[in-house]
């Protein structure tokens, strides 16, 4: 019955769920003490390195800090358009 209603009501997230998610995100950044500027530098450096080997979708690329069982992990989601065969064998 509940699921039935959900289908018609659309999937809406309650404000307490939103608070939960937003806090998890912001606390990781608070604790890691990484400024948005530093994150931007990290992102640009990753792009530089990876671009030697593959062509990536820079606009769709995301990097973020996430909590992984009490440790902070840097998670990068980098869509690859195609490999660069020449650059890959350069070294």
């Amino acid at each position: 019955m509940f699921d039935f209603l959900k289908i018609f009501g659309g999937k809406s997230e309650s404000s307490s769920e939103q608070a939960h998610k937003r806090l998890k995100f912001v606390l990781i950044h608070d604790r890691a003490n990484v400024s948005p500027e530093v994150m931007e530098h990290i992102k640009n450096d990753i792009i530089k390195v990876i671009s030697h080997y593959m062509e990536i979708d820079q606009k769709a690329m995301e990097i973020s800090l996430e909590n992984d069982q009490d440790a902070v992990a840097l998670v990068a989601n980098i869509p690859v358009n195609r490999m660069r065969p020449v650059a890959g064998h350069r070294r």
Partner: protein
Amino acid sequence: MSEVIVITSGKGGVGKTTTTANLGVGLASRGKKVVLIDTDTGLRNLDLLLGLERRIVYTLVDVVQKRVNYGQALVRHKKYTNLFLLPTSQVADKTAIEPAQMLELVEAMKSEFDYILIDCPAGIEQGYETAVIGADWAIVVTNPEISAVRDADKIIGKLQAANKKIKLVVNRIRPQMVKDGTMLDMTAIDDILSLECIGQVPDDDKVVDSANRGVPVVESKDSAAGEAYRDIVGRVCGEDIPFKPLEVETFWQRLKHVFGR
């Protein structure tokens, strides 16, 4: 064996002083010898919540500056005769007490009391350092609001860096809002802060009512917050008390609430 507990929060107005007063009365009514130290110099309120504001002669500032010894500054509660308050000054500021002076005082008091509860000021400056330095462990009080939880995490980081054990109290929960999905509940806050939670206190008009009278709510039998505080007192004493489910007001109770006055 004396236990020194600091009650802290980061954000102001979440119920640190209320928690301190209720814990103090609760522990004292179990026969423990308890002293409550107010370190919120310049903005003292613990005296008011305990109904002791008219009996203060000397303060914490007089004690650490060695003008009097701590015994002269202690105010004994009339009803709970093994409960004492060491008030702070309302005119001095937080810089009047150095952390080292506080540590020396707490060490000296340990032989006399079962529990030393320290009410910490809001913020993360010197007042915080002074309050925390002598504590064995900390109770972090928070509200189910994003700003209070974030500030709590900041304090938790500082306490962990100082190797203090921490337990959490979530204050002012509104069961109906939790049920409706519009307020964080204890489990969510537990997940966010990953701490052991020793209490969830429902938002209760009786807390304000009892503060008006200077009689902590922990002693009133018909108060949901009072019951939650009694459970917290038990958990502080090391008892394994299961959490009761939050009680949502029925339709009739809510109606009574609205038209009650």
